[in-house]
């Protein structure tokens, strides 16, 4: 009976070890079974099917994403185009506003000291030039833009024409960039400005030129109040 007392401990130890071994083996076997080479053929077929379906799905997704990418790229190119357009537009506006020095073919009008002219004649000449397609005009190297004012000023002894509140000095030279022939025709229309001035004995000299240089506006106004209306 002494043996009976002793058997419990070794057997328990053995069974503990057996339990450890068994569970370890179960885990290992699970891993072995999940290995692809141990799978059933049917399962493998299903797996292949599922995977190929997924692959097709992913390929579709890839193509759609690539299309999107291309769209984004082209829109980026569009953006560059827009920027270029905006820049050219900006240059045009700079010419229109007179903030940029310009050169080109045009007409040069010289009025000498003896001509009996009034400020209104200059306004008329300039209006006529604009109407004839002038793109940039300057009056004695003062660029004409939307803010230019032409008027006259009087002192006790004399009266003189002013541009931007500065007196004009003779000889007055008007330079206009545009098609020289059109500009000339605009002025020399029968019954036009030249005829009108001739009535008063003023004979401006018209001179076509291939290359005129018109300076930029000396000071541009700073806008503080005007805001664009957003509709």
């Amino acid at each position: 009976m002494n043996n009976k007392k002793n058997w419990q401990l070794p057997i328990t130890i053995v069974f503990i070890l057996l339990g450890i071994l068994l569970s370890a083996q179960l885990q290992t076997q699970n891993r072995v079974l999940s290995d692809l080479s141990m799978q059933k053929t049917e399962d493998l077929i299903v797996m292949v099917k599922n995977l190929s379906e997924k692959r097709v799905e992913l390929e579709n997704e890839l193509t759609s994403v690539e299309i999107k990418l291309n769209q984004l790229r082209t829109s980026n190119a569009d953006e560059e185009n827009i920027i270029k357009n905006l820049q050219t537009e900006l240059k045009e506006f700079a010419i229109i506003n007179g903030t940029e020095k310009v050169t080109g073919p045009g007409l040069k009008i010289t009025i000498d000291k003896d001509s009996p002219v009034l400020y209104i004649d200059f306004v008329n000449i300039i209006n006529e030039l604009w109407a004839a397609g002038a793109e940039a005009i300057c009056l004695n190297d003062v660029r004409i833009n939307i803010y230019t004012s032409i008027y006259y000023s009087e002192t006790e002894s004399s009266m003189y024409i002013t541009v931007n509140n500065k007196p004009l000095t003779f000889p007055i030279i008007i330079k206009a960039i545009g098609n020289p022939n059109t500009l000339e025709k605009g002025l020399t229309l029968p019954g036009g400005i030249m005829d009108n001035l001739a009535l008063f004995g003023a004979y401006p000299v018209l001179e076509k030129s291939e290359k005129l240089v018109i300076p930029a506006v000396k000071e541009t106004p700073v806008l503080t109040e005007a805001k664009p209306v957003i509709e």
Partner: protein
Amino acid sequence: MWFLPLFGLIIGALIGSIITFEIPVTYAKYMSIAVLASLDSAFGGVKAVLEDTFDGTILLTGFFTNTLIAALLAFLGDKLGVDLYLAAVFAFGVRLFQNLAFIRHCLLSKTLKKYNHKPGDSK
């Protein structure tokens, strides 16, 4: 106190499941043969208890050596190109069933004896 080994088995299984052994899949085969050997040893121990020929040292040394040698032999067999693995499976499997059969017989005859000798019958 027969439940102590069972208890030990459950504790061992729990320990084994908590401590996750990362046995490489290539060694799973040897591991399985080692498990078979240890199973055989454990049932051999139970049989010895029932036979009253139990010896703790024999059981423990038998357990370890059987387990290790079974795995080693299977490994060696693979290296030599002999399926010693099958021999081990056969040997341990046969012995396992013999042990189980003996245990069954023994328990059965004991309970039958108890049933036949009613309480009150002095033995």
